[in-house]
């Protein structure tokens, strides 16, 4: 396999080589003890030779877009380029992109190429500073194409103004794939002196491919938003399925707390419509169970919905397609209004928080407007107002908090969850950095659910690497496997990424590091509970 054996520049996106880079474990940034020794993590693999025929392995050998979209001949290549340029032009119009036109153009226009942002990116840093993961690399490729093909100065003065770029199939395949090597965490944006947003540029590249050509990872589109709208949930869970699971959760609660709780479903006129990420029902039913216990004990008027779309809070559109975002957000609001609730409250799911509360704030209007809020302030009120009796001693084990980017950096819900942990977890310790300067779990922007081909390997080895480093550092005083440790991750996707991370690095077996949500810890601290709610087993 031919790779580029010299330093990589933005114009190398067009290079005819098979792959621009090939990663090995030795290239990656070192992890803290005990992972500083060789053999503590798996070697990285090559893509299967047959994948190269159909899929875009041309960037780094990994495949995020699991569609066979590689052009087979010159005509297909030309068609691809033409569609791309059509899409790019639409991205620059009010009709096509009122949603992000101003932020996009500002970011294309004003980058000073100072590279202040690079060191903020966990993926770039932990990859051992691979050029193709630098926040500015993909942004500069799009910028050069935009300048060259869409601006008068670029058309007149060419390379002198736009910089060097050739537009061919390789360029586009690498550009599209590289938009899926960024978790849209926007940590880079925080450091930019001009406010240029490289995360947004990744988002816009993804949109261009999806909205114009229907090119997006299956997990996000076909099995994600489309399945969500068609079947009811991106997990494939149907309305009947969710009702069955809710019954099972009621049984489970009874087993655990010795008391039956009737979980309200489709109750008209409740104060709150609580929407969980449906992944919770399937992978972590203890999370909706804990919500039910807390809300019932605190006397909150609430309901779940069993209507298609509304029992799944996710909105993958927020990562790659504005129309799909609008469709799902509108459906959520419509169903909530039909239930005559006062507001939607989002459970522990970061991107769902941001999608419906913040981003969709300028999608919903008139009949489809409804108040939406995070579950965190309500949970903090339960603790602050002492609506339930808690005994923090029940949580006397090391706990650290992972901040979901969407909830924290991107919508400013920072303190309620920490206040709860400061009260209820005596051994709570922060990761560094934390709060709005946190690092992404590596599962952001859809990565947590993108499980096909070799993408999980890249996610675990590169994207979640910084989070793993932070976790090891947060627990460095208690790495002894006889001490159970808890990563509190109040977000389903983050939990998914952390679960895969712990499994990849075998950290639960080796170091007894476990993970879970926030409500589980709250219930675990309830005085009324005889048995611990948190179970120390990896799942």
């Amino acid at each position, binding site marked *: 396999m031919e790779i580029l054996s010299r*330093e990589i*520049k*933005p114009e190398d996106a067009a290079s005819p080589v098979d792959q621009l880079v090939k990663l090995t474990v030795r290239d990656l940034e070192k992890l803290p003890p005990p992972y500083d020794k060789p053999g503590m993590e798996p070697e990285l693999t090559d893509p299967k030779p047959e994948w190269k025929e159909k899929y875009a392995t041309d960037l780094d050998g990994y495949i995020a877009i699991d569609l066979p979209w590689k052009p087979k001949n010159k005509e297909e290549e030309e068609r691809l380029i033409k569609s791309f340029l*059509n899409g790019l032009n*639409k991205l620059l*119009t*009010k*009709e096509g992109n*009122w949603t*992000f036109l101003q*932020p996009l*153009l*500002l970011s294309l*226009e*004003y980058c000073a*190429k*100072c*590279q*202040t942002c690079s*060191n903020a990116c966990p993926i770039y840093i932990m990859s051992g500073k691979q050029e193709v993961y*630098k926040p500015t690399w993909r942004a*500069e490729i799009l910028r050069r194409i935009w*300048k060259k093909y869409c601006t008068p100065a670029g058309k007149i003065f060419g*390379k*002198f*103004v736009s*910089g060097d770029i050739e537009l061919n199939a390789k360029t586009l395949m690498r550009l599209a794939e590289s938009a899926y090597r960024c978790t849209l965490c*926007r940590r880079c*944006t*925080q*450091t930019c*002196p001009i*406010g240029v*947003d490289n995360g947004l540029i990744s988002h816009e590249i993804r949109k261009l491919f999806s*909205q114009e*050509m*229907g090119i997006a990872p299956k997990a996000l589109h076909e099995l994600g938003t489309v399945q969500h*709208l*068609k079947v009811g949930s991106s997990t494939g869970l149907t309305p009947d399925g969710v009702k069955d699971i809710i019954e099972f959760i009621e049984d489970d609660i009874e087993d655990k707390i010795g008391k039956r709780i009737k979980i309200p479903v489709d109750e008209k006129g409740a104060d709150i419509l609580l929407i969980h990420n449906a992944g919770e029902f399937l992978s972590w039913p203890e999370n909706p169970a804990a919500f039910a216990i807390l809300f019932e004990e605190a006397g909150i008027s609430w309901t779940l919905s069993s209507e298609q779309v509304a029992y799944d809070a996710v909105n993958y559109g927020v990562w790659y397609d*504005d*129309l*799909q975002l*609008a*469709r799902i957000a*509108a459906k959520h609001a*419509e169903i909530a209004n039909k239930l005559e609730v006062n507001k939607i409250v989002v459970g522990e799911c970061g991107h769902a928080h941001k999608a419906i*509360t913040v*981003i969709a*704030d300028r999608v919903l*209007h*008139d009949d489809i*407007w409804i108040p939406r*809020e995070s579950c965190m*302030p309500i949970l903090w009120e339960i603790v602050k107002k002492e609506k339930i009796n808690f005994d923090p001693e029940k949580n006397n084990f090391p706990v650290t908090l992972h901040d979901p980017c969407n909830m924290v*950096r*991107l*919508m*400013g819900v*920072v303190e309620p969850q920490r206040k709860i942990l400061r009260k209820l977890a005596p051994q709570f310790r922060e990761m560094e950095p934390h709060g*709005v300067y946190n690092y992404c779990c590596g599962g952001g922007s859809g990565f947590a659910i993108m499980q096909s081909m070799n993408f999980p390997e890249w996610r675990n080895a590169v994207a979640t690497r910084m989070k793993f480093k932070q976790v090891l550092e947060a627990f460095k005083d208690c790495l002894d496997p006889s001490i159970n440790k808890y990563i509190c991750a109040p977000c389903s996707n983050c939990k998914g990424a952390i679960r895969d991370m712990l499994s990849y690095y075998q950290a639960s077996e080796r170091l007894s590091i476990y993970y879970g949500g926030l409500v589980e810890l709250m219930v675990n601290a309830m005085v009324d509970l005889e048995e611990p709610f948190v179970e120390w087993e990896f799942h």
Partner: protein
Amino acid sequence: MPISALMALSYAAFAIFVIVVASKWVKWSSMPMHLRWELYPVPHEAGRNQYGGSYIEEVDYWKKPRETTLAGELKDMFSEMLFIKRVYEYKRPLWWLTYPFHAGIYLILAWFFLLFVHGILSVYISIPVLAKVVYYLIQICGTIGIIAATLGCIGLIIRRFSDKDMLNYTAGVEIFNLFFILIVLLTGIATWITYDPNFQHAMEFMKALVAFNSAYLPKLTTIAEVHVILLCLLWIYIPFTKMSHFIGKYFTFHKVLWDDELNVPGSKVEAKVRELTRLPMPWSAPHVDTGKSWDENALENPKDEWGRWKY
């Protein structure tokens, strides 16, 4: 006395600068409202900006009055504008070059303003004490400004060429811009040293401009003339280029990263959303109903034969 060619060029440069900057401002401010895309910390969040919190941390936040702080916003704005805080925090070695450069330019802009005030004081209103103060300030701003900006500019050019991370991303025009500024600064230094050590002639030049009278014009040496011409060309050129990032920076921060204005029923935001979602969607992917509005696409999604949403 009629105005001279150099005076005409100076007026034209200033006018073009103002007009182009204003039109860019209008262009950016008349762009459609975008989806919310704020990034925390948002400095106007009263009581929460220290840790990056937002009003969404409150139960029923949409019912409660918003508490904002202008002081928080100004503090962040000025620390970025005057001290280039983010580069200081995140890329210190570059800050040692970019800061003298930018601070030098600010001082040169202050110098222009002081020359203007001095011109007014010598043509229209006489306040000798103030004129004296202004005179000394001109010496201070001019001297420090041009030295700092020139050293910073040379440093930035060296860094741009020696730092592969920066060079590989730099287009020819960006190098040209730096050299253009450097040449203007160097001709300025040459003029200052060889011809105008106390900025006396600069004051006279400005006096002529303020009075619209070339009788006040000093006799310029060739290097001084070259400097004035290049300086005017730079003034004309800047607003057409990325060097006018001071405009962009206002919008990136105020209108994107700090824009957390809430949409509630009956609000201006809602009216804009209503209007924008009526726009036809031009996109061509299979899941888009091309030509139908955003609202129609989002709300009246085509159904399949089972009555289920198609996309």
